[in-house]
C-alpha cells in the first residue's frame, strides 16, 4: 500500500509513551522540508520576475501608511496552461514517463521474478548486481551512454563490425536515446519493490493452481500477477514520478525534439532567470503527478475494502 511510504504511519504505530513526539517529529520534518518550500514556491509563482535580488517581486506592498496592496500574478499559470510549447512539454513528459515505466516493467518484472525464484545463495549476488551501479555517480553513468550511443560509439562500431548495418545509426540526441537512458537509470527502482513483493509469494499457491488444473502460464496470469499488483504499483510510481520531472537524461541524451518539463524548468530558472514562471511550471507538474497518485491510492483502498 502506498501509504507505507509515509514514514509517519509506520512510526505512529509504535512506542506509545512518546506518541506526540513520535507523531510530531515526522510532521515537523514534512512541514520544514516539504510544506514550507512548497509555500515559498507557490508564493514565487504568483510574483513577477524582476532584475534584482531576489529576482521576483514581493506579493505585498505598502501603498501608503495604512493600505497593504496584494498583487497576485496569475499570468504564469495561464501561460503554462495555454502556451503550446509548455503543453507539448507536459504531454511529452507524461508520455516519456508512461513509456519508460512500461519499459522498466517489461524488463524489470522478469528480472525480479528470476531473482525471487533463484536459489537462495544466488539472490544476494543478483540483487547486488542490480544495486551496484548506484555506487557510481548517476551523471557519469548517463555520460557513459553518450560514449555507447554516439555516431562512432561502441554500439555503432559493434554493429558495423558485425555487418548488421552499413552506416552508423543516429540514436544519440533522439527520443530513443532518452528512453534508453531513462529505462537504464530507473530499472532498479522497478526491480527492487517487485522483488520484495515476489519473494514473499507463497509458492504453494502456484502448486495449488497446478493441482487444480492450471497450466504454468495461466497460473502466472491468475495467481502471481494479481498478487504482485502492489509491487507493480509501487515500482511504477517510483519510476513514473521522477521520470516525468527528469532533467539530466533528456538534457544529455535527448535532442531538440525531447521537450520535457524538467528541461523547460531549468531553462526558465537558470537561463531566463524567470523564477515565477519556473515555479508555476513546477507546481503544475506537481499537480499532474499528485492526481494519478491519489487516484491509485483510492483505487487500492477500495480494492482492500471489498
Amino acid at each position: 500500500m502506498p501509504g507505507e511510504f509515509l514514514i509517519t504511519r509506520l512510526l505512529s504505530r509504535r512506542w506509545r509513551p512518546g506518541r506526540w513526539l513520535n507523531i510530531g517529529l515526522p510532521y515537523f520534518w514534512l512541514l520544514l522540508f516539504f510544506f514550507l518550500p512548497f509555500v515559498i514556491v507557490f508564493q514565487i509563482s504568483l510574483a513577477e520576475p524582476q532584475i534584482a535580488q531576489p529576482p521576483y517581486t514581493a506579493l505585498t506592498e505598502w501603498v501608503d501608511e495604512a493600505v497593504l496592496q496584494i498583487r497576485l500574478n496569475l499570468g504564469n499559470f495561464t501561460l503554462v496552461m495555454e502556451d503550446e510549447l509548455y503543453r507539448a512539454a507536459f504531454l511529452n513528459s507524461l508520455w516519456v514517463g508512461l513509456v519508460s515505466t512500461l519499459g522498466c516493467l517489461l524488463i524489470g518484472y522478469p528480472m525480479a521474478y528470476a531473482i525471487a525464484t533463484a536459489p537462495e545463495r544466488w539472490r544476494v549476488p543478483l540483487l547486488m548486481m542490480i544495486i551496484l551501479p548506484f555506487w557510481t555517480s548517476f551523471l557519469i553513468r548517463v555520460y557513459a551512454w553518450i560514449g555507447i550511443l554516439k555516431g562512432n560509439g561502441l554500439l555503432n562500431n559493434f554493429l558495423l563490425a558485425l555487418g548488421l548495418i552499413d552506416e552508423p545509426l543516429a540514436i544519440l540526441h533522439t527520443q530513443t536515446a532518452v528512453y534508453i537512458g531513462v529505462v537504464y537509470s530507473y530499472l532498479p527502482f522497478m526491480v527492487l519493490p517487485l522483488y520484495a513483493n515476489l519473494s514473499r509469494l507463497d509458492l504453494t499457491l502456484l502448486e495449488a493452481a497446478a493441482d487444480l488444473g492450471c497450466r504454468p502460464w495461466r497460473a502466472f496470469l491468475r495467481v502471481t500477477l494479481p498478487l504482485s499488483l502492489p509491487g507493480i504499483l509501487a515500482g511504477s510510481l517510483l519510476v513514473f514520478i521522477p521520470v516525468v520531472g527528469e532533467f539530466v537524461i533528456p538534457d544529455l541524451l535527448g535532442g531538440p525534439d525531447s521537450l520535457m518539463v524538467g528541461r523547460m524548468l531549468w531553462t526558465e530558472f537558470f537561463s531566463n532567470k524567470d523564477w515565477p514562471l519556473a515555479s508555476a511550471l513546477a507546481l503544475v507538474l506537481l499537480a499532474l503527478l499528485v492526481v494519478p497518485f491519489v487516484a491509485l491510492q483510492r483505487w487500492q483502498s477500495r480494492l482492500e475494502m471489498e
Partner: protein
Amino acid sequence: MAHSDAQGQAPLAVWQDPTAKPYVRIEGVSRHFGEVHALNDVSLDIYQGEFFSLLGGSGCGKTTLLRLLAGLDTPTQGRIWIDGVDVTDMPAYRRPVNMMFQSYALFPHMTVEANVEFGLRQEKMPKVERAERVGEMLDLLHIGDLRKRRPDQISGGQRQRVALARSLAKHPKLLLLDEPLGALDKKLRTHTQFELVKLQERIGITFVTVTHDQEEAMTMSSRIAVMDAGQIIQVDTPGAIYEYPNSRMVASFIGSVNLFEGKVFGREGDDILVAGDDRLVMRLRCLQPLSLGTPVTVAVRPEKMRLCPECQGPGDNRVGGRVEDIAYLGNVSIFHVRVSPKQLVTMTMANTQPRTEQVLTWGQEVTMTWSAVCGVVLTE
C-alpha cells in the same frame, strides 16, 4: 509379515481380495534430493474407496510420497499408476487428482466462492453448471454464508472447509490431504475427523491422507501405512497395526508399549517360551517358526497388563515391581512400575471406582500379569 484381524466370516476387504485391481499403484518409487533419500524403493497399492493414511514422524517421506501422487514432484526411480494410467511423467495439472494443502494454500486475492470455482474454470465448465457445482460444494461443507468473504476474513476452521471444498469441487477420483487437520485446535479436530470420514463415505472418493498424529490415523483410516526413513514399515488396518505391529518401530510409534528383550528357549504348541532379563520367563502366542536362541523383543500394551490377584490364568506371564509413579488422567490411571534397575513398565487401568478407593499407591510392591495372546513377538 502382516497379520490381519482374525475374522474368518467377515466379507473380505477390498485389499484382501486378490482379484481387486488397485486404484493407485506405486511401484519401486524412490525420490532422492541430492544425498538425501526422502523415499527409498516404496511400493504400495491403494484401492478405490479407501481412506488411506500415510503415518510417520517428520522427515519420514510421507509428504514426499503425497506430492509424487499429486504430480508436484517426480520420482527419481519407479512408476506410479492411477486408475490404470501411468502418471509418473504427467504434470500435476493433467492428473485426475486434487490435493488439500497443509497450509490450505487458498488464493488470498479471491473470495471463497472464486477459490472453490477456480478448478472448474480451468476445466472450461459452462457458467451455469459451474455455479451449481460451487453451490453444491459450499452446501456440502456448510460454508454458504462465507461465499463473498476472502480467506483473511474467515477463521482457521472455516478456511479448512474452504480448502476441502475447493479440492472436492472438480469431483476428483482421488483426494490427497496433507495434514488436513494439523492447523485446528484439538476439539475442532476430533469433530472434523468424524466429519471427514462421513463425507468420504458419502461421496465415495478415495482419500489418501498424510498425518503424524497416530490417533487421527487410527480414527479415520481404512488402512494405515507406517513410514520411517523413506520406507514403508507396515501397511494394515488400524486394529492390526495396533495389535500386531511387525517391528519395534511400529510398536513404539503407535501408542505406548512395554518392550521386553529376550531369547527363545522353547516351544509348546502355538506358544513359544522366551527368557528375558532377571529370570523373567514369558509364554507367548507365536505361529512364526523361530529357532531356539533367536533374540526377540516382546511387546505388551500397557492396557493389556493387569494387577496380579485379578483373573490369573494358568499360562499367564508375570512380572513384579514397585510402583514409582501414578498419573491420574480421569478415565484411566497410568502406573509406572520399576521391575528392574533398567526397566520401567507402564500399565494403564480404567478407573472403574472413584479415586478415593484406588487400590495402588506409590512405593507399593505389585505383580502384573498378561496372557500369552496379549504379547507380540518382534524380531525386527
